[in-house]
């Protein structure tokens, strides 16, 4: 059907599957596939990694203090309501045309997703288990490590999964501006040179990245962590 529609509307609007596959082969052969994917994944790793670290700190603060929990709730609500585009523009103003725009944007967009999952996990910790910990005089640290962290892990994995998908989509948008590598950059270049088949080829690359990380990283992670179930 894709091939038939392509015939009807022409290669600029909808390139044929064969042309897209040929495009994929070209970028794989030229090495562009690896350089741009690598550049994007590197920025995602920095932005997403920093976001995870910050989310864990917020989670710890929410566990330790009721007051902090209220502040964090409001903060996350504000972050959640802010558009991707606002962060991209601000990043360009603050950091100029550099790697930091996609990294910062990824950080700001994934932080509320990761942090609200972690905070939710911490709030859902079974009070009865914490009471057991008190009765047996486990220290605050022992309770955190033995009771709070394990009950938060399923929420964390769910947050990582959603967050990573978001990071991939958002960082690519941010790469349209100001950088000279990455999947977003090359998709924009392809559009400018009217190479629609390359836009499709890169879209397939993104889908493949998502599927592979889902299967290889997150699914096996959930399985490992849930072996007691």
């Amino acid at each position: 059907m894709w091939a038939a529609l392509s015939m009807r509307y022409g290669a600029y609007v909808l390139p044929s599957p064969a042309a897209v596959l040929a495009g994929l082969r070209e970028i794989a052969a030229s090495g562009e596939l690896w350089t741009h994917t690598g550049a994007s994944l590197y920025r995602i790793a920095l932005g997403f990694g920093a976001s995870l670290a910050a989310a864990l700190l917020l989670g710890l603060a929410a566990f330790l203090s009721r007051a902090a929990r209220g502040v964090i709730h409001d903060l996350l609500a504000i972050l959640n309501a802010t558009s991707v585009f606002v962060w991209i523009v601000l990043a360009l103003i603050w950091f100029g045309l550099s790697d930091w725009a996609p990294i910062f944007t990824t950080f700001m967009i994934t932080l509320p997703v990761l942090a609200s999952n972690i905070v939710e996990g911490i709030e859902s910790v079974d009070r009865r288990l914490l009471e057991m910990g008190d009765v047996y005089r486990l220290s605050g640290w022992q309770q955190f490590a033995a009771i709070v962290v394990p009950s938060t892990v399923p929420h964390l994995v769910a947050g990582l999964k959603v967050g990573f998908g978001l990071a991939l989509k958002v960082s690519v948008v941010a790469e349209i501006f100001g950088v000279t590598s990455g999947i977003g950059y090359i998709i924009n270049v392809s559009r400018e040179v009217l190479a629609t088949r390359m836009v499709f080829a890169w879209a397939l690359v993104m889908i493949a990245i998502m599927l592979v990380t889902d299967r290889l990283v997150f699914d096996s992670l959930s399985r490992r962590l849930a072996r007691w179930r």
Partner: protein
Amino acid sequence: MALKLEVSGVGKDFLIPVLDSVSFGVAPGEFLCLLGPNGCGKTTLLRILGGMELPTRGRILLDGAPLPTQLHRRIGVVFQDDRLLPWRTLRENVALVLRPLGLGRAERHARATEHLRLAGLQGFEDYYPGRVSGGMRQRAAIARALAIEPDLLLMDEPFGALDAQNRRVMQAEIRRLWQATGRTIVFVTHAIDEAVAIGTTLLILSARPARVREVIRNDEPLERAALIDKLDTMIMEEVDRQQGTPGGPR
């Protein structure tokens, strides 16, 4: 002989007074069963003894020193639910509560294994709680409480969630563990036959706000049937009185 546990004038008010003024003593090695109408404050009293609630008034001495500031005395608690960590094996669950005692890793492991064996769980040490029956989980919870070698063991209707057959088995087991370890036990139950089957002393609380209605020694096996009847009458009287008093359950 000095008392192990001395409770004097202990009371607790939530929105309504639940415990009026409760006083009693427990001798070392005694197996005390707390009985009373539902909602009279048995569990609240046990939670106060375990330091999970603070009393509104009164004083509790464990080995002559006041609770709950007493940190070098150990209190083991078996709850109505097992409260095992589902992500840890039975052995890891028992070993966890030994950490605050400052034992080394190998010693925690050995002591957890030993207490699981005493509780009849040999061979199940590496099972996760979700993989064993409710009765076995409650055995593991008892093993955990005994593993800290508690000065006082508190049990709050620990067999309430088990079926009749398992209850019988566990009643015999706790009696055996009590004889084997010589621990001092305070055991809350609403089942008269259970109290008579396992306790050395029966303490009957009155209707809410609770006071001690009666303390009965339970060391004459021949009188059991008569004793059960007598207790039944007492508790029904208190239930009637409680239904005449205002306030919701707690």
